[in-house]
């Protein structure tokens, strides 16, 4: 780390910049959304000339976890609400044959797709605390929007993906690698708030918890 940079900063910003530097160098990612629909509007890193791009691999199918969870906490707005506004997003692989959750292709634990599986959809369920009004849910991969739904229970197909995300198997591989974040917008007490949480493979036997308890 270069001390010249830190010396040029106000003392109260140095620790923050140290944390930024500790995260390592990478191509900058900037994605902008409107709060109303969390629609990507401006300056996506996917725009032409961007220094960031996603390299699609040949679609060889997906092997890995079929269920994922993101525990959501307040990311923006609503100062003072603390932990009272939270939620959960659950993702589940839907199989090719019948459009239902992928029980037929899972292993003994019911949570892993086997070699050669190709996802036909990903079911997205959003659960929020009582008293809030859901607006949208966006899945980010490395900060880049992959798909958005305005329904609390939806099945995303390949056609719903940002075209840069290749296919659903690519998205699943990215989720399994821990690169995903769920971003949910909602209304609460006349304020628009944003919740976010990292998407991780679900623990065995986990169900949507009671968020109000």
């Amino acid at each position: 780390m270069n001390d010249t940079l830190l010396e040029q900063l106000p003392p109260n910003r140095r620790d923050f910049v140290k944390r930024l530097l500790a995260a390592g160098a990478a191509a900058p990612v900037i994605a902008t959304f409107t709060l109303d629909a969390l629609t990507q509007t401006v300056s996506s890193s996917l725009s032409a000339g961007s220094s960031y791009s996603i390299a699609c691999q040949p679609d060889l199918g997906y092997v890995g976890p079929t269920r994922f969870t993101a525990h959501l906490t307040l990311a923006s707005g609503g100062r003072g609400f603390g932990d009272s506004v939270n939620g959960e997003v659950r993702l589940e692989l839907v199989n090719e044959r019948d459009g239902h959750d992928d029980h037929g292709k899972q292993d003994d634990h019911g949570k892993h797709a086997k070699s050669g599986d190709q996802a036909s959809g990903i079911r997205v369920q959003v659960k929020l605390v009582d008293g809030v009004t859901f607006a949208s849910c966006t899945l980010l991969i490395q900060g880049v929007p992959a798909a958005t739904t305005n329904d609390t229970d939806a099945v995303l197909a390949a056609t719903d993906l940002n075209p840069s995300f290749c296919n659903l198997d690519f998205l699943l591989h990215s989720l399994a690698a821990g690169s995903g974040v769920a971003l949910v917008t909602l209304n609460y007490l006349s304020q628009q708030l944003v919740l976010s949480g990292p998407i991780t493979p679900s623990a065995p036997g986990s169900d949507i918890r009671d968020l109000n308890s």
Partner: protein
Amino acid sequence: MAFPRHIDGVELEAADEGYILHQADLDLVHYLNPPAVLVWELCDGRRSGEEIAELVTRAYASGAGAMIAVPDTLARLSEAGLIEYLS
């Protein structure tokens, strides 16, 4: 020479693997990863884009900062309405 600086009224919150910048007056939310936030953070209205680029490039060990295209990042921050230029 132009000197980029933050737009007023932007609220910064840590998020997973990055940061959320919230412009409440415009109902906009921006997601930035740490290198993008670093560039934004250095836009204080006193450094030029060239000076920011030099600081960022030298801030990381082993020349890794070279992968951060500062001019492009400044252009995208400006497009997103997160910085403005003072002349």
